[in-house]
Structures are given as C-alpha cells and as structure tokens.
C-alpha cells in the first residue's frame, strides 16, 4: 500500500519539463520578435500623438483660449532613455501575452487542433479582441491628461473584462455548439452592459481631434501587433516541435 501512496504526486516527467521549455522558448522568441516590430510601429504612429497630447496636459498649449492653436507644433524628438524603455517594456508586455497564448495553443493542440503560423493569425485576432478591443470598447485608449475614474477601479473592470472576453474567445473557437456561443456572446456583452468606471466630470484639456486619433492609432497598431504576435507564436511553436512530448 505505502509505495502506491508515494506515487500520488509523481515528480515532473521529462515530457512535462520538455513541454514547459517548449512553451517558454516559443513564447520568448515570439514576444521578442513581435515586440521589436510593435515598438517601432508604436513609436512611429502612436508616440507623436501622445507627445502632442502632453503639450496640452502640461499646459504648454491651450485650446479654446481665444486664439487659434497650430495643429502642427514642434514635438520632442527621439529620447533614447524614454523611447528605449518603451521598446523594452513593449517587448516584455508582448512576451507576457505570448506566454499566455502559446500555453493555450499547447492545450488546443493537446485537444487535437492544429497550430500553425497561419492559424496563429486567428489566435492573434482573438488575443487582440481579448486584451485590447474588449476592454477598450468602454475604457477607450486614453491620451495623457484625460479625465478618468479611479485607476484601481478601472484596473479591476479591465481585468474582469479581459477574463470574460478570453473565455468567450475560447468558447467561440472550440465550443462547437449553440450553448457555448450564447455564453460567449453574454460574456462579451455583460461588462459593457454593467458599464466601465467613468469620471464624475469631464476635465480633459486635450483637443478631441487628438484623443480620437490616439484611440484609432492605438487600436490599429494593436491589431497589427496581435496579428504579428499570433503568427510568430504559431511559427515558433512549430519550430520547437518535439516528437513525443505532446502525445
């Protein structure tokens, strides 16, 4: 009896270890590769809008002040420390996303679904909906200086919405029946019917034109970013193929 009891928590098998390092390696490669490209896209398309908004946040520019303000002020140029940190943190953030995505890919493959760079595109779009579009539908991407509710309340709502959307995406992809589709729809709708935390008053000093462009650019670059990440994740997952660990 006793020898059987000691087997209840077996040590990690070589296959388990191999599977973990495969997930880790693919995610690191996908996150780093996609992260560099995404950081460049953000610096090129999002950062100038953010810097423009900061001129209004700090009061260097004021609109509705009587005199017309140029829509093309001189913006700060490339800042090695600030923009360098942005590149590092973009790579880190997307490596975090990649760890979650590749882990779920491994589970999907274990359940009999094929994972390729091509199907990775769909995974990427699902990731974009989960982490960016779903929370951003009610908590729109913010330029610096906008009025907003308490940050902790918004973080809680953001996390709950991301969790709900993530489950919904999995059900849409792998549920395979009407009940799961209905649950997925409810999970996607519910956070927005409940509503995101909103500010009591509007006090944003940034022109609406800049705020709208920022949200559009953030979503556009976000979709490109997640598409790249999904394809890279599928590609590196296959590159790290090991013969027997998945069976």
């Amino acid at each position, binding site marked *: 009896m006793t020898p059987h009891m000691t087997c*209840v928590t077996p040590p990690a098998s070589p296959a388990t270890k191999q599977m973990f390092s495969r997930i880790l390696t693919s995610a690191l490669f996908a996150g780093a590769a996609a992260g560099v490209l995404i950081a460049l896209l953000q610096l090129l398309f999002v950062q100038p809008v953010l810097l423009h908004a900061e001129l209004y946040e700090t009061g260097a520019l004021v609109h509705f002040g009587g005199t017309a303000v140029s829509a093309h002020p001189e913006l700060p140029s490339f800042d090695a420390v600030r923009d360098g940190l942005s590149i590092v943190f973009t790579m*880190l*953030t997307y*490596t975090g996303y990649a*760890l*979650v995505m590749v882990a*779920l890919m*491994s589970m999907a493959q274990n359940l009999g679904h094929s994972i390729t760079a091509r199907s990775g595109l769909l995974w990427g779009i699902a990731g974009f909906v989960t982490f960016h579009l779903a929370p951003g539908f009610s*908590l729109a991407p*913010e330029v610096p200086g906008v009025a907003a509710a308490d940050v902790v309340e918004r973080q809680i709502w953001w996390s709950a919405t991301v969790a709900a959307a993530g489950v919904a995406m999995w059900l849409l992809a792998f549920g395979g029946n009407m009940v799961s589709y209905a649950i997925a729809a409810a999970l996607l709708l519910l956070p927005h019917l409940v509503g995101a935390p909103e500010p009591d008053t509007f006090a944003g000093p940034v022109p609406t034109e800049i705020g709208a462009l920022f949200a559009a650019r953030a979503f556009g670059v976000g979709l490109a970013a997640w598409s790249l990440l999904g394809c890279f994740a599928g590609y590196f997952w296959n590159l790290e193929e090991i013969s027997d660990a998945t069976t």
Partner: protein
Amino acid sequence: MTTKTLKTSVSGTRFMPALFAVILGLGVITLTGHVQASALHDAAHDVRHATGFPCH
C-alpha cells in the same frame, strides 16, 4: 482506490506546464501594465497608454 487517485494525478499534470506558463505570463502583464509603483509606472508609461491599460 489508490489506483484511481494515481490516474487523476497523472492526467492532471498534462496541462501543468501550460498552467504555469499562463500564470507567468499574467504576472509579466501585471508588472508591465498594472503595478503603480512610480519607477515602473514612469518607465512603462507610454506603452501602457499605447496598449490600452488604465494608466493614471
């Protein structure tokens, strides 16, 4: 009885690497996207705005 327990435990380990990677990934995302410590916030500021995290 003992055999049953063993079976459950072994099939449970199948998804353990994935589960651990998900937790690790969520930890990284929390660190880069949510933690409000000022050094982290300042370093990640532009990325948080661009990536749609609640920032301030």
